[in-house]
Structure formats: C-alpha cells, structure tokens
C-alpha cells in the first residue's frame, strides 16, 4: 500500500480549502513556505534543537505494568506526551508552526484553543521565539480550564474570551478565522489540530508525526528487529495526537489503529461529540469532513466533559481513514473517562488529561480482548493537572462512581 495523501489538498473526497476568498493569498503563501522549509535542513535542524533541548523529546514509551495487570490482557505501553514541555503533545506543532511563521516574517500569531493546551503550547512557543500571541477561547472553556487561562497570561499571551454561539472550541475557531480575515496581511493563524483548510491538516500531521516515529523506534529498540505493536490507541477531538501517532504506521497494515472519540452522555443522546461514529460529511471550518449537524446542515451543539474533545468536526484525514477502514473509531463516555482518569492515577501514579483518559479507557477494554503476548501503545496526549477541578466537581455530583473500569 502506497499512502501518499493528501493529493491536491484532498484525502479522498475530504479536506480541501473551503475558505473566504480573502484568505487565499495567505493560504497559498503558507503552502509554498511550508513545502520549502519542510525540505530545508537548517529548518529541520532548528526544529529538532527546540524539540530536544527545549521541549524534552524524545518522550518515554513506558510499559505500564500495573495497568496491564489491572486490565489482565495484552501489554499496555504508554507514550508519554504528557511529559512534553507544556504538558501535552501540542508543543510539537506549536514549535513547528511558530518557527515557520518566524521564517515567513510574521510577527503576530493567533490561535484557537479548547482545553487551553494548544493555547498554552502556542503561548510558550511565541515567548521563546519572540512572537506576539493572541488566543481565542470559548467563554465556557475559560471557566472550566481556568488554570490554563492563567498559564497563557503568565506566558505573555492575550486571551480573548469568545461569547458567541456555544462558547466552546468551534466558536473560538470562528472568532480566530474572523480575526485572520481582518488581519491577514500581518497575522499567522496557528491552527492547533489536523483541521481547517489545506495545508493545515497535512502540516499539523507532519509536525505531530514525531510521536509515531518515536513509538516505532522505541518498540524496535525494546523488542529488536522490525518489531511493531499490534495496536495503537489515541483520543480524537480534532485528531492531531491520533494522526501523529497513526501516520508512521499507516502502511503497516497489521498494526490496528483506534481513534477514541468523546461519547459524552452516550451516543443515544445528543450530548456527545463522536463526529466519526455519529456524524455525516459536510463543510465546516475550511474543510470537507464528518460533522455533527442537524438535517438542515446547522452545526450541532456538542458535549464532552473534556473541553479538548468538545468539537463538532474532525480532521479530514480521519474521515478518509474511517471510510477506507484503515483506522477504527470508537467512543468512550464521560463516566468511563472519569473512571480511567482515576484508574491511571491510582495504579500508575500518572494523572492523565481528561482527553487522554478516553484513550486509556479504550486501551484497557481492548487489552482485555487481546492475548497477553500482544502489545498495545496508547498515546497519553497530555497531563491532567488542568482537569482536577472538573473531576472533583463530577465526583461530588455523582457520589456513586467508584474507582473501577
């Protein structure tokens, strides 16, 4: 299998550039610059320097023995993106795009954020690279992720609270796009996930693929030869940590890929954001992709306990991988995510981000169905300090939820 996507900015029928005309010169300039610097050795060297010396790459691939024993099935390895500087995988992309923006001569950076992890990642990259930074964040998210708002402010970023629409990630993206349209001549839009118009889904995937490449090397080092894991599991909101984990394995067809979406209160309700398992294709935020929408094409209000997954769209490459059946997309409810959050904390001493707890939940479930000799890698996209208040509130409201999976 030769996987060479995107072709002309498309992943099969998905992707594309569904953007207002005013943004075209910016998108074309970005595409040309990215294609130039992607192959530039100096640029790659500089990025490698920041990723290793500044951000702490490579991140460990940890054999979670206690979690494996708890699950009682296949061996579970955790890719520790929670240990990356900033506390999540987002830094891989923000350093990459931040450096690119700098090379392009852009001084003002704008970005959207849901959980605040991409906002923090952008703010720290801008601080170290000497760029101005403004972050758009839904009003509801500024409430539930207060800690990250504070971190962004400390890092020198200006946070714009977005009061329109559902006051979550999608509205933050809308507002950032409006800013971009107004200030396109001076401003670089640093998208935080594998979403938006081409070339963003490709570029963010490329910057995040360092996760999957390291997993591959680390597995080979641990087990010798060309050893590869049997399955890879990652959570999917927009889908950047999943795409970065999957991409280097796409042509290794015997490695199963699982993307875990937020099931919220369950797919039978409307309170979820399982775009790939519960949506249908449409056009939104510059791309054709699966969307949660009503019968008239209005974008649905979504729900997840995790702000970072609370988004009605998904990266177009995931839509394509779903249709060609290369990756499997499953979901995990709020309740299951909370349970796994507590399980991982208790058994491994690792407090995961609520986003990543969705992946942990499915990894445990999958391990139970697999042989003890088989190996699963689960990407732990971020750490959970930001979520302790949310979890505490949840537990206070639902006193019967005990620590079990």
């Amino acid at each position, binding site marked *: 299998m030769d996987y060479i996507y995107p072709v002309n900015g498309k992943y099969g029928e998905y992707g594309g550039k569904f953007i207002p005309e*005013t943004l*075209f*010169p910016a998108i074309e300039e970005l595409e040309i610059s990215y294609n130039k610097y992607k192959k530039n050795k100096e640029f790659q060297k500089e990025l490698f320097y920041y990723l290793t010396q500044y951000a702490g790459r490579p991140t460990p691939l940890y054999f979670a023995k206690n979690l494996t024993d708890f699950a009682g099935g296949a061996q579970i390895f955790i890719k520790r993106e929670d240990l990356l500087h900033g506390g999540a995988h987002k830094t891989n992309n923000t350093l990459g795009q931040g450096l690119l923006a700098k090379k392009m001569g852009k001084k003002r950076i704008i970005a959207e954020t849901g959980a605040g992890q991409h906002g923090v990642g952008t703010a720290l990259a801008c601080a170290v690279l000497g760029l101005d930074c403004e972050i758009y964040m839904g009003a509801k998210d500024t409430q539930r992720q207060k800690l990250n708002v504070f971190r962004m402010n400390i890092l020198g970023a200006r946070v714009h609270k977005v009061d329109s629409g559902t006051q979550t990630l999608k509205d933050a993206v809308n507002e950032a796009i409006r800013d971009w349209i107004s200030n396109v001549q001076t401003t670089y839009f640093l998208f935080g996930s594998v979403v938006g118009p081409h070339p963003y889904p490709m570029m963010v995937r490329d910057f995040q693929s360092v996760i999957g490449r390291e997993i591959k090397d680390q597995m080979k080092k641990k087990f010798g030869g060309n050893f590869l894991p049997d399955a890879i599991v990652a959570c999917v909101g927009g889908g950047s940590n999943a795409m970065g984990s999957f991409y280097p394995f796409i042509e290794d067809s015997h490695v199963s890929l699982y993307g875990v979406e937020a099931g919220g209160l369950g797919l039978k309700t409307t309170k979820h954001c399982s775009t790939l398992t519960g949506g249908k294709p449409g056009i939104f*935020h510059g791309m054709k992709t699966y969307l949660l929408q009503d019968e008239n*094409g209005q974008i649905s209000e979504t729900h997840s306990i995790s702000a970072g997954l609370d988004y009605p769209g998904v990266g177009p490459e995931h839509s394509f991988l779903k249709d060609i059946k290369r990756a499997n997309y499953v979901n995990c409810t709020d309740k299951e995510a909370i349970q796994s959050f507590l399980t991982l904390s208790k058994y491994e001493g690792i407090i995961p981000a609520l986003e990543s707890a969705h992946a942990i939940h499915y990894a445990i479930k999958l391990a139970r169905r697999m042989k003890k000799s088989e190996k699963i890698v689960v990407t732990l996209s971020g750490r959970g300090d930001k979520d302790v208040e949310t979890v505490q509130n949840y537990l206070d409201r639902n006193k019967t939820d005990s620590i079990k999976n």
Partner: protein
Amino acid sequence: MKNLNIDGLKSSRIHDTFVDLKKQKTCALICYVVAGYPTIQMSEKIITTLIESGVDIIEIGIPFSDPIADGPVIQSASYQSLTNGTTPEMCIKLCSRLRKKFPKTPILFMTYANILYGTGIKKFLTISKKSGADGFILPDIPVDESADYIKLASDLDLSTIFLVSPNISNDRLSSIISKTTGFIYLVSVFGTTGERKQLEEYTIKKIKEVKKYVRGRLPVSVGFGIGTLEQVRTIVAAGADGIIIGSKIIKIIKDGKNQKEILINLEGFIKHIKIGCKI
C-alpha cells in the same frame, strides 16, 4: 454581459436589471436581510418595503450556525433567527411568496456551504430554482472548490456569484470572472461584514482596478462595510455597477421599536441612499 434569456424558464432578471439601470444612469442597490429576523413574516414585509422603496436586487440570507465571514451584527441576527426556529425550507418559501409579488426583481440566496450540502446540493439548488431564486452567494465556496456547484447551478441556470477580495491577484480574478454569472461581488475591506466609519483608499483603488480588468464582461458590485450616503457616492464615482448593503439594514431592523417604525425607517433610508446611486 451574458444574456441568458434563451427560453421562458431561464432567468435573465439580473442581466435585465443591470441593463435597465445603466440606461437610467443608476447604480444597482442590492440589499441583504437575514431571513427570519426578527420573524419570517416580518422578513416578508421588510423585503416588500425595500423593493417598493427602490431596492433593485434582494439577497435573502439563510441563517447558518457558524457564519465565519460575518461580523457581530449579522452573527447576532442569524443566531436570533435560528433561535426562532427558521429553517432553510422557510427561507425558500419566503422566496416563493416574494417571487409572486415581484416577478422582475432578482432574488439571491446568500448562505454557507453546509446549508446546501446538509440537504444535498442538487436538491437544494433545484428547490431554490423552483422558488424563483436567481442565484447564490456562498462565501465559503471559493472557485477552487466549486466544480460540482457550478455544474449543477449552470444546469438550472442559477447564477453563481463569487466574491473578490481586496488582495486578489489577476490570475485568480481571471478564474473568478470565468466562473461567475450575474455579477462580481467585490469585498471592499479586509474583514467580516459590518459597517465601517470610512472607506479605505485601497477600496477605491481596487474598484477601479477590477472594473478595468473585467472590461464590461460582468457588472461589478461592491459590498461589506457600506452604510452611508457619502460612502455610496464615492463608490459610485469610482465606477461600481452595484452597491451592496447588509449590516446597516439589519441594524435599522434591530433599532426599530416596532414593526411600523422599522418599515418607515427602512423606507427613509433606502430613499436617502438611492440619491447616491445616480451616476
């Protein structure tokens, strides 16, 4: 200008309107309203008043949940309309009723791509045509992504009106001219819809450039940020064939204390602006 009036089914309303106005030495006045704001019944009265007061072309905005090209005024009206329960079907029925009252006035739908794709683009264009609509303005379908849309719209003889930005290159402009039917929609500013206090110098420069480049193949209408007589006069003097006003109309609707006041204020505003449309 392309004359599309080959048989009775095909629409030449946009073409005829611009030709007639040219003879009268007048720039076309094009007005945008958000359907269902404040109510769908009121939208019908508003549009009726606009046309009877002198508006030449109507844009019916079908509200979308995430209008990324719109500023706060239209965002908030769209949100209000959706909260009232406005559906695309209701907007299409509104067009049918207006078409019966006003057989000659061009009526366009302005909305976002997913409204068409959510229903199925072929079905949506077909029912729009049946309702008497003349064409579409879709700010998030650029020419690069328009192949299906153009094919289907062209089969139904619906105009495909594309937007041109102030930073457009001549190559892109050529491509847009070749795919546009009806008129060129020149976006006057960098930014979203909404009134601006004053016109930018680059806007005037761009109108002249685009007019020169288009060489009379299509009328050029200018929109975004326009709301005063003085602005209209300057744009007309720069050579525009049409003026598009949206947010200012919505603002008048929002500020009116009751239905009667809204309609009186709109009539007054249109008559005032029309003075500036004389070439």
